[in-house]
């Protein structure tokens, strides 16, 4: 009998209880941790990309950026900060003001282009696009033949949405919010506020997606 007990290999009740407890803890704790880790690994590069795109969009809209438009390739299209009215013939700095579209005048600069630039930024679907018009006819008769996505490398990867408020909001010199003066009355605009969400996929962390909501504004020096 004693020989028989020696040959039977197994766990004591205490050992079994410990093993079951440890296994139970591992089974309960490990999957959520692993899942969270996987989400985080997927989320991190997307968060960085969304963040980067948000910064680039703000910079391109406010300050300007290099253009990929043919004819302007490699040259800088300046942003809203450099929008200036023209006295003769009288043209306001902002000639088109809508919730999801803005047109502004960048005056003649020999080092950049030979003519005034009538720059338009607009939200098209879930991408911010920039184009340069030949005139400031308001509303624009048609879209120019070519637009570029801001920033160019974000195409198809980062979505730009405007849940609330709209992409562009306009304020006068007293700080009062203006309802978008589409074409007329744009000379009263002294500040443009820009708000949007840059996100990957649905922006949901549980799906490994990321989003960043940003708001900034720029004063119009000579409206």
């Amino acid at each position, binding site marked *: 009998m004693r*020989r028989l007990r020696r040959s039977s290999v197994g766990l004591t009740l205490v050992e079994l209880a410990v093993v079951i407890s440890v296994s139970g803890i591992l089974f309960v704790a490990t999957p959520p941790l692993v899942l969270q880790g996987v989400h985080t690994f997927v989320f991190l590069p997307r968060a960085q990309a969304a963040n980067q795109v948000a*910064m680039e969009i703000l910079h391109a809209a406010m300050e300007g950026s290099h253009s990929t438009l043919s004819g302007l390739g490699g040259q800088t299209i300046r942003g809203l900060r450099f929008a200036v009215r023209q006295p003769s013939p009288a043209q306001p700095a902002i000639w088109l003001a809508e919730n999801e579209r803005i047109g502004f005048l960048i005056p003649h600069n020999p080092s950049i282009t030979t003519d005034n630039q009538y720059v338009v930024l607009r939200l098209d679907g879930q991408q911010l696009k920039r184009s340069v018009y030949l005139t400031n006819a308001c509303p624009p008769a048609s879209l120019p033949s070519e637009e570029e996505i801001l920033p160019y490398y974000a195409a198809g990867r980062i979505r730009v949405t405007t849940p609330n408020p709209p992409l562009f909001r306009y304020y006068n010199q007293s700080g009062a919010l203006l309802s978008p003066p589409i074409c007329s009355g744009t000379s009263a605009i002294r500040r443009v506020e820009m708000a949007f969400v840059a996100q990957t996929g649905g922006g949901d962390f549980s799906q490994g997606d990321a989003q960043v909501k*940003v708001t900034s*504004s720029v*004063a119009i020096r000579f409206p």
Partner: protein
Amino acid sequence: MMPHGRVQSPKSEVRGGLLRTTDYGLRTTKCGLTLVELVLTVGLAGILGIPTGLLLSEHLRAAVTSRDSTVAMGLARAETEQLDSLNNFFALPLGTVTIANYQGYPYNLTRTITCQAGNCTSGSSNSQGVKRIVVTVTKAGSTAPLARMTTYRTKHVLFGL
């Protein structure tokens, strides 16, 4: 008894007058981890997992900080430009104002306006004044500034003359 983890060829032995044949095929069904092995495995997994978790945690913290900085800088600039666009020097009262949840974001914005030079309260055209405006954005519940911007507003100052 065969030691665990060691490969041996089947053999027969005589014990107590009985011929006993060790059937390794049957014994493998009894093979498994001992408690010590299991604890060692869990310990090693922990040793490997903890640094990985810490690394991931730091990476995540950096991503969140980066996002906070981007958003806070945008908000600070929004407020600075807003003050800049007001065409009235006196619309900016001296003192410190804190706006909680600025524009619906989970950040607090503090605006401090001081009179940097001259007379900032007199409306006389002979009275020059320079206001210093500091805008600081912090995360709600924190005092560490995420973004800080400084600008100046003047009245009755003729630049370059």
